[in-house]
Structures are given as structure tokens and as C-alpha cells.
């Protein structure tokens, strides 16, 4: 019997392909709903483009609001991919293998939505080219443009390059009539003639190992400069040296929560229980626990110093945020529901069940979003010279346009994700198969040691 070294990956590929069928039943309803929300968000954006940002609740004092909070949030969860694929790859955490694709896809789609948020927030979208024509490198916005563009390019490449072997498998399955002619062509073209020859495999491994190392500092830079948009101003609550690392930790924290939620949904909807196991939830849950603690620590350091020092401008912010002002309930709900409770749920041994881990992650994710909002708005509401001195009252609550665009963007993110999982294998087949196949090889080699000389293992 001729030995097929890639039998395992072919087997897995067939199973994954079975999840790529058309959306049916309740799934259609969901997709329909998401598309409707995206369309509604599009209508709201068209309205905003025609009337100007006056249709938002932003005004001269709170001149950045929900859109910028969303921007920070989505760029934050984009760190899921880097964490899982790059950091865990570099540290040889083998359990990462089934979920790398899922995480990298979050990165790419979250970056798309996050970057769009800045464009949506712009007063003059028609002048976005000015950034390239007149760009000033001294402006943190240019730092963001450079670093996010680099991250986007790197992430797309990373997602794609790691997927090439799987695309070759898809192409092979297409040859067996699994897909229509258009899909077959797509996979054939994208797989770039990959045939898993030893040279190809070696080159691919080298490329991925290199990119994994490169993408980590890029990801760190992205969220650092996102924080510097705020940190470089003189505003109370923003002008803080801790902001870079604070945002980076917050990003990885929310990214990890996002990947756990995504894993839970895919596991359930696409019946991937065999590949995404409790082990993954437990390991990532432990990681999330650590990140929750670190993030809580940063939050404490940030606010305790401001509160204890009590500089008047900062004190006004602290009062507004947590000392009885308008955001007190939101802040403490975030602190308890989004940091403390997830930590408790994730920490108690023996109680770490899958639903609890997922619940903790969902709470952390929502809490992270609320935190972004609380970083943005209360600081804008407490300028050095209170607006009240000019006889103006500053209030901000996002308008229906802002909520609609936010809902549309979030739905678009989910839709992109669903569409991706229907066109491309959401599990990284080759990565899962590699260690299994290697084990099989060594078993086979052990059983027929003399046959080793025939180099059967690398037969074409």
C-alpha cells in the first residue's frame, strides 16, 4: 500500500470543507439581519456625508466621540492574531495550531473596520489624499498611518502566506469536483503552485518564522502610536507616560477575549468540537486571566496617581469618571463587570468550565469597549478651561447616526468573518496536520527502521 504522507491533512481538509457549504436555515436569517444592519449603517453614513458631522452628537468640546472609541477598540482586538499566531508561534506553543487562522482573520478584519472608523470620523473624506500629499511626519496621525498600513500589509501577508498550503489542498479538492469552476480557479491561482515539496515547505516555514518575529514589534508599535494620538496632547487623562504600554496590554487583552468568543461561536456553529477543544479555551482563558490582572494593574496605576495627586484638571476628570460624575456608573460597571468579574470567573479552579470562560471573555470584550469610550469622552468633557465658564454646557451621547454606523461596522466585521470562513478554511489544516503527520512518520520509521534508507518519507 503506497504511503501518503499527507493523508491526515487531506482528511482534515475534507472535514473543514464540509463547514464551508452554503449558509442555511437560521444562519441565513442571521446573515440577512447582519446585511440589513450594514445597509442601515450605510444609509446613516450617506446621511452624514451629505449633512456633515453635525448629524453626530460631537461638538466643539467633545470633538472626538464614539467613532474614535470604536477605532481604538477595533485596532485593539486586531491584536488577537498577532498574539496567537506570532507570539505563540515564536514560543512554540503547539496547542495554538487549530486557531491560528481564526485569529489572523480577526486581525485583518478588525484592522479594516478600525481604519474605516477614522475615515468615517473625518470631516473631509474627499481630502484624505492630503495625508499623502502634505503629510507631516511630526504628527502622530502620520505615525498611525505608517504603522497601521504596515500592520495591515503584514497581517494580510501573514494570513495569506500561512494559508498557501491549505489553498493547495483546496485546489486539490476542487480537482475532485468539490467546488465549482470559479472557486477552483481562485484556489489554483492563490495557491501559487504550492505542492508541498520539501523546498517549498522549507521556504514557507522560513517565511512564516521571519514574519512572526517581524509582526510582533509592528503590532506593539500600532497600539503604542494609537495611544500616542491621545498621549501626545496635554489633556488630563490622556497626557500620560503609561499610555503606550497601557494600550498595548489593553489591545492584547481585548484581542484574546475576542478570539475566545470567536472560537466559541465557530465551534458551535460549524461543529468544530473535534479541533477546537476545551484545552484551547482553558489555555486562552489562563492567558486572558493574566491579561485581565495586568490591565487592572495598569488601570489602577493610571487613575490612582491622578486621584492621589489631585491636580485640579485631573481631579475634575476623576470626579466625572468615578467620583459621582456622569460616568460613575459606567466606570464602575466596567471595572466590576469587565475586569473583576472576568478575573474571578477565570481564576477559580475547578469552576473553569467552557461556558464560564466564554462568559468571562464576552464580559471582558464588552468591558474593553466601554473602557475605550470612557477613555475618549470624559477627557474631552473636561478641558482645562471648563466650558461652563463660557456659559456652555457640555453633554455628549452618541446620536442615532453614530450608533447606526457603529452597529453597521460591527455587523460588517462579523459578515466579513463569516464570508471568509465560507470561502477559506477557517482552521489551519496544514498546521494541525503537521505534528500529527510527523508523529506518524516517526512511527512508521520506527516500525521499519531498515526502510529508512529508502527515503520513503519524502517520496513525492
Amino acid at each position, binding site marked *: 500500500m503506497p504511503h501518503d504522507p499527507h493523508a491526515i491533512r487531506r482528511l482534515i481538509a475534507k472535514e473543514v470543507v464540509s463547514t464551508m457549504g452554503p449558509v442555511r436555515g437560521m444562519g441565513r436569517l442571521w446573515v440577512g439581519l447582519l446585511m440589513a444592519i450594514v445597509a442601515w449603517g450605510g444609509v446613516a453614513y450617506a446621511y452624514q456625508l451629505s449633512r456633515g458631522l453635525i448629524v453626530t452628537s460631537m461638538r466643539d468640546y467633545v470633538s472626538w466621540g464614539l467613532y474614535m472609541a470604536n477605532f481604538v477598540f477595533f485596532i485593539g482586538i486586531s491584536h488577537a492574531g498577532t498574539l496567537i499566531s506570532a507570539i505563540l508561534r515564536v514560543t512554540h506553543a503547539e496547542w495554538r495550531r487549530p486557531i491560528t487562522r481564526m485569529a489572523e482573520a480577526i486581525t485583518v478584519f478588525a484592522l479594516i473596520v478600525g481604519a474605516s472608523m477614522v475615515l468615517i470620523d473625518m470631516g473631509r473624506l474627499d481630502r*484624505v489624499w492630503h495625508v499623502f500629499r502634505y503629510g507631516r511626519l511630526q*504628527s502622530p496621525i502620520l505615525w498611525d498611518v505608517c504603522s497601521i498600513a504596515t500592520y495591515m500589509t503584514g497581517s494580510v501577508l501573514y494570513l495569506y502566506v500561512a494559508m498557501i498550503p491549505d489553498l493547495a489542498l483546496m485546489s486539490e479538492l476542487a480537482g475532485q469536483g468539490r467546488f465549482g469552476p470559479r472557486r477552483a480557479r481562485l484556489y489554483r491561482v492563490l495557491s501559487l503552485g504550492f505542492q508541498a515539496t520539501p523546498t517549498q515547505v522549507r521556504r514557507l516555514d522560513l517565511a512564516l518564522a521571519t514574519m512572526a518575529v517581524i509582526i510582533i514589534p509592528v503590532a506593539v508599535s500600532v497600539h503604542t502610536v494609537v495611544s500616542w494620538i491621545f498621549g501626545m496632547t496635554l*489633556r488630563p487623562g490622556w497626557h500620560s507616560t503609561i499610555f503606550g504600554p497601557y494600550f498595548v496590554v489593553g489591545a492584547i487583552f481585548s484581542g484574546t477575549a475576542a478570539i475566545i468568543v470567536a472560537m466559541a461561536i465557530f465551534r458551535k456553529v460549524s461543529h468544530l468540537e473535534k479541533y477546537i477543544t476545551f484545552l484551547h479555551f482553558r489555555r486562552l482563558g489562563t492567558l486572558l486571566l493574566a491579561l485581565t490582572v495586568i490591565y487592572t494593574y495598569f488601570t489602577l496605576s493610571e487613575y490612582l496617581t491622578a486621584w492621589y495627586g489631585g491636580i485640579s484638571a485631573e481631579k475634575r476628570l476623576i470626579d466625572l469618571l468615578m467620583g459621582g460624575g456622569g460616568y460613575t456608573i459606567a466606570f464602575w460597571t466596567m471595572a466590576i463587570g469587565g475586569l473583576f468579574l472576568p478575573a474571578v470567573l477565570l481564576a477559580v479552579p475547578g469552576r473553569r468550565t467552557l461556558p464560564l470562560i466564554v462568559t468571562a471573555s464576552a464580559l471582558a470584550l464588552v468591558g474593553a469597549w466601554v473602557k475605550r469610550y470612557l477613555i475618549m469622552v470624559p477627557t474631552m468633557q473636561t478641558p482645562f*478651561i471648563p466650558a461652563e465658564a463660557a456659559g456652555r454646557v457640555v453633554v455628549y451621547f452618541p446620536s442615532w447616526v453614530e450608533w447606526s454606523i457603529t452597529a453597521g461596522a460591527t455587523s460588517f466585521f462579523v459578515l466579513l468573518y463569516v464570508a471568509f470562513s465560507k470561502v477559506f478554511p477557517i482552521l489551519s489544516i496544514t498546521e494541525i496536520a503537521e505534528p500529527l503527520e510527523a508523529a506518524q512518520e516517526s512511527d512508521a520509521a520506527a516500525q521499519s527502521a531498515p526502510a529508512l534508507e529508502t527515503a520513503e518519507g519524502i517520496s513525492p
Partner: protein
Amino acid sequence: MFLKTGGLIAGGAAAAGIVNKVVRAACREGPKLAGGPAFTTLTVNGTSCCGQEGPAPAGAQETVPVLTADGKLVHVARDQIVHGVGRPPSDPVVRRGVPGRKWVMVIDLATCDGCGTCTRACSKMHFIPPDREWIPVMKMQDAPETAPYFFPKPCFHCDNPPCTKVCPVDATFKRQDGIVLIDNERCIGCRFCMAACPYSTRHFNWGHPDAAGEPPEAHANAYSPENGHPRRVGTVEKCDFCPDMAEQGMLPACASSCPFGVIYYGDENEDAVTNGLGVTVRLSKLLEERAAYRYMEELGTQPRVYYLPPKNRKFPGPKLVGKGEHAGPAGAPAASPTNNQASPPAGEHIHPS
């Protein structure tokens, strides 16, 4: 050597009587100053009018004594002196500024009664929609036990401006003559400068300017960053220090309109500033004798606007709540509708008992 005609020209909002007084004051004060280059260069019978003048006041044919660049005192018909037309954004001087000048402002808090005339004159001259003010008069109280006072707040045109630092496209820029301007044909509307300004000086055109209430006259001339109109949706604006006026030897509308001469304006290089009453004083002496300060010096922004402390005030300060209720700048409790400094009715002065 100052001769301030700005008080006349910009004073579309000012009553004719006040204007006359200013003329006389200017003539009286001007020649007394020794040294310093001539300040005034006039555009007489200018080829175009920028539309910043109000309707011609009664007695428009009266003559005005003005000092020419070569130091001669001449009389010209007042309606022949025109407000300068700002340069187009493409003109290199717009970004470079007027060579040799360092425009500066001094605001005397001791004589400000919070009437808001400066705010209205500025709004009128720059066709500012009613939802914003380039020079609001804030009500401040530094501590519960200290006296409240009025605080006109223009753009400070900082020498280390946090706003121009962060602009991604160089749409807002610092000129050699000290002025910070905005090119609304380049601004992309990211509002980073607004977040960066610690003084909340900047305003955004959230909607279309005509919908916001910009009068049609704002469109009379082509856009210039030197006077800020016509406005454009999705761009930032703020107090521009009236560079077009200054260049012609005229005071900004806020300074020329102030009936109490609170706002002084001039050239730091000449070491002289002039107020709306035509009083010209030596800048260094004024700053020294009156213990001038710059607002929030500790931020390191180095404002070009100085304040004279509200010592021995000529007018009562704003009416504020009882002591101990709040500290810091006069806050919310004072902002009752009846005492709303943001937009008091024309001519109404607030004189709290």
C-alpha cells in the same frame, strides 16, 4: 510710532460717536510715542474690498488722519480706507507671515466689565455663525475665596503651539510674525488640533456653514486663511489675530470695539501696543508695571496673549455663587440664562450688584 486707524475701520459695529472719539484719541496719542518704525501702511482706494466692513456709517465722508509709511500725517476720507483683503492660500506670505513683525496682545482684566462687545464685533467682522465665538468672555474664579473676574479668551497664538504640532497635513501653521492660522482648503477635518489645544480655542464646521448661520456676505470674497471665510464644512476655524488688519495698521475688531480699551494689540518688535481707545503704550513697560502673566504658563505653550491681573478693578466682576461651592475657573453654577456671557443681548452690560 503708532497711528491706529483700526478702531475706525473695523468699527462697523461701533457707534459713530465712539469712532470719532477714537480718532481724536489716536491723533493725540500717536505722535507722543518716540522711536519705532511706522506702523501704518494704508490701502487707500484699494482695488478691492474684502467685505469685512459693515455698512458705511453715517458721515462716511469725514476725513481721518493717518500716518503713512514714511512718517507723514495725511488726511484721507474714511470710506477710502479699506479693510485688507486676505491673501489667497497659495500666496507664500500666508504661511510665512509679515517679515519683521511679532504680533502680540495684552488683555487688561482690571478694566473688563464682561460686556461682550469684543465678542460681537469679532463675530460680526468674521461672519461667525451664532453657535461659536472666537473670543468668548469667560467668567473665572481662581479659588472659592478669590474675586471672580471676566476673561476674554482669544486664540493665544502660542509660540510653542500644541495644535500645529499635531496637524497631519500642515493645514494649521505658525507664521514668523507669530500668528497661527488655518488653511481650510487643506484641512482634512481630523480635529486632532482641537483635541490638542489646551484652551478649547478651536471650532469645527460640523455642518454646512450657511445652515449654521454664516451670513451670505461671507462669500463676497475669495477664501483667505488670513480672515477665515467663507467657511467650509468639515474644517476647523478659530481666532486669526486679524493679520490682514494688523498689516494695514489696524486693530483687530475685538480691540477696536472695546469701549474700555481692555484689549491692546501691537508688534512685540516695536515694543508697543495700542488699545481701542487709541492709547499706545510701551509693551515691556506695561507687562512689567502691571505684573502681566500668560494663562497656564506651566503648559509651556508660550502664548502671545498676555493678561494684566484683575487688580483694582474698574468694574465689578461676574456675579457668582456663594463661596466654597466650587474652585477653579468660574463654573457651571454661574451660567444661568439670565447671566449668560456666551451671547448677551446687544449693548447689555452685566453689572452685578
